[in-house]
């Protein structure tokens, strides 16, 4: 009798046991009173279900038996970096096979976009990779602007504001990577420091966009709103504050024996692996290749900024960690340069057939509709009212065609493939999210290693499930 007896379950926290030997087990009828824990025959053998607290009812396999356990890690797991499900086949604590299963956060954003105007699209895409929302908006808007043929007409000031926000967002995203990565490896102070610093960045976002995340601030043609009074001063203060605080994390982790023990040599993926699997971002730069789209194919005027592309040649989780630390410093440099270039001017394209008709204004009761604009359209100009109404309800038309724009998000290449049928709504928008692609590399990094190293590998590529599942 050569039955492979598998214990299977459908609850997230329990485990499957696969004994590949001639073993006689207790019959399933003894498993207990749990109505969900019964047994049935399959082609692979008899399957027993355990649902927790009933392991004692299963007889231990004899010595020398191949004792691979299938563990269903996630989709709810504190160190799975989001609603990610990993199906692991374990031999002791060694990962023999790893299969990531995604889709638990799929919300159909790309489909939703097809039923809203081009401007409303930013509201959706900002919710994809919610840790780096401004990059989603920027990629989408750059793609729409390319289709409109207005890439060169975007005002200088709007582009600089975009750069400032994107670089701050790179810092906040890397801080989340460090914080949650530290949390998953047991370095709780890294989490405290990371989220403390991120708070300073989110304050900047709140001041400029009104929101801490889901901004919908970058719009086709420019940005939604000019910088508020005193923004430049606050930005520079925050840059100084972050410069002062970053060494806290650096001093604590960079030479930390425990941290290095968890990350050095872990999650190895070399250049050939990255190229084949499409992995970008810090993972690719940790192989020694200085691949950064800000340098390779500059957008938003990045070719005019002075910054370095940090690389390491260790191909491991520690190298990726060091690259993130360095990149945050480079982002601060870019922000300083950008702030020094800010000159008064428009923040929305001059074409009145595309530009949103009015900006918000600060009234006695807070930020709201511009009273001047309301007066203009309601009391002075019928044409302005019609124009406002058409642009807001119908939106602008984008010439038929397709465009692909890729930008360097904190996680790697964030691409937006936008297709227009000449209408007022996107015909199809596809996001090439770096987390989605990088997650494919987890089995390559983890198989053959320890289960605890899988967690470090996963943390080092920093997937955000909102972007993976969209």
């Amino acid at each position, binding site marked *: 009798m050569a039955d492979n007896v598998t214990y299977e379950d459908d609850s997230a926290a329990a485990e499957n046991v696969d004994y590949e030997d001639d073993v006689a087990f207790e019959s399933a009828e003894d498993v207990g009173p749990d109505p969900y824990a019964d047994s049935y025959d399959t082609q692979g053998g008899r399957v027993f279900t355990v649902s927790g607290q009933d392991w004692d009812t299963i007889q231990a396999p004899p010595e020398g038996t191949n004792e691979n356990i299938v563990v269903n890690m996630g989709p709810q797991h504190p160190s799975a970096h989001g609603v990610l499900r990993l199906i692991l086949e374990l031999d002791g604590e060694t990962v023999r096979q790893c299969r990531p299963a995604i889709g638990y956060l799929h919300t159909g954003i790309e489909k939703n976009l097809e039923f809203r105007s081009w401007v409303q699209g930013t509201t959706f895409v900002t919710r994809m990779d919610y840790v780096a929302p401004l990059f989603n908006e920027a990629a989408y808007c750059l793609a729409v602007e390319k289709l409109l043929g207005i890439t060169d007409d975007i005002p200088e000031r709007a582009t600089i504001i975009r750069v400032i926000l994107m670089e701050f967002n790179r810092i906040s995203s890397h801080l989340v990577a460090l914080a949650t990565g530290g949390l998953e490896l047991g370095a709780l102070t890294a989490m405290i420091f990371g989220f403390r610093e991120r708070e300073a960045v989110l304050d900047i976002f709140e001041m400029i966009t009104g929101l801490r995340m889901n901004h919908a601030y970058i719009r086709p043609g420019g940005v939604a709103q000019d910088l508020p009074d005193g923004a430049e001063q606050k930005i520079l203060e925050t840059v100084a504050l972050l410069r002062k605080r970053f060494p806290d994390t650096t001093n604590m982790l960079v030479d930390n024996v425990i941290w290095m023990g968890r990350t050095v040599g872990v999650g190895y993926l070399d250049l050939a692996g990255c190229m084949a699997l*499409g992995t970008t971002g810090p993972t690719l730069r940790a192989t020694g290749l200085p691949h950064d789209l800000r340098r390779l194919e500059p957008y938003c005027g990045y070719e005019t900024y002075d910054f370095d592309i940090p690389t390491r040649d260790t191909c491991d989780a520690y190298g990726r960690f060091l690259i993130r630390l360095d990149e945050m410093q480079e982002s601060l440099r870019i922000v300083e340069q950008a702030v020094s270039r800010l000159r008064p001017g428009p923040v929305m394209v001059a074409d009145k057939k595309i530009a949103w008709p009015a900006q918000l204004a600060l009234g006695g009761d807070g930020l709201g509709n511009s009273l001047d604009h309301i007066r203009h359209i309601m009391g002075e100009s019928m044409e302005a009212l019609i124009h406002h109404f058409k642009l807001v309800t119908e939106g602008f038309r984008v010439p038929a065609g397709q465009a692909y724009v890729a930008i360097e998000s904190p996680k790697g290449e964030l691409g937006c493939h936008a297709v227009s049928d000449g209408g007022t709504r996107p015909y199809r928008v596809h996001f090439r999210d770096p987390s989605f692609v990088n997650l494919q590399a987890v089995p390559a990094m983890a198989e053959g290693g320890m289960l605890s190293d899988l967690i470090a590998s996963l943390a080092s590529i920093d997937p955000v499930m909102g972007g993976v599942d969209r």
Partner: protein
Amino acid sequence: MSGDGAVQNPHGEEVVPAGAQPLDVIAVRQGAFGVSGSGDTSGFGGLVSTITMPAAATRPYGSWFDAAADELDLALSERGIPMSSAVEKVVVHRGELTFHVRREHLVPFVTTLRDEPALRFEFCSSVSGVHYPVDTDRELHSVYHFLSITHRRRVRVEVSAPDADPHIPSIVAVYPTANWHERETWDFFGIVFDGHPSLTRIQMPDDWPGHPQRKDYPLGGIPVEYKGATIPPPDERRSYR
């Protein structure tokens, strides 16, 4: 608004001379205001406009496109595939180069893109599907974006398949990164990538019926009733298109 020198009519649509290559018709619209599903009192309802994707480009393409196309032509001939049989048409639009490739030649085509030293598109950025229900016998498109880090270039490859036979060869053997992309495109569009190691759904639940990003996928919607009227799903509502 097009910057490619195409002739346009006053509505901004491109006018194609007689005898030109067939275009990807992606929509046929009536009226002047984009409103459908309501009584037209404007008198413009008789206007019919056909929306097509940008027309095929003729030489010279400009930029590095010509040199790359020549290299590709040469490399494909060495592999015994004439460019004319592999490539349906070449489109240059918004500074992007697109090869529309016949599906039976896709795998050797992308292998050439990857391996030829003068091309060296070593990185597959993205695979995405697009559904054009009006583009008869070419309804399903699979769009590939390749990046050459060596030469700092991007190229797009577009492959189409009819709805009745939604098969496109998989490029996973050439670009392993296409694995999840192709699973996603199968999941959302129902394009079957032949030769894919495990073409299963990736975003939707395994037992999900249908392919949600197709244009003919019913949206459903909650019938909200108010004084006898109900709100239809978004794709059936009156809207500007």
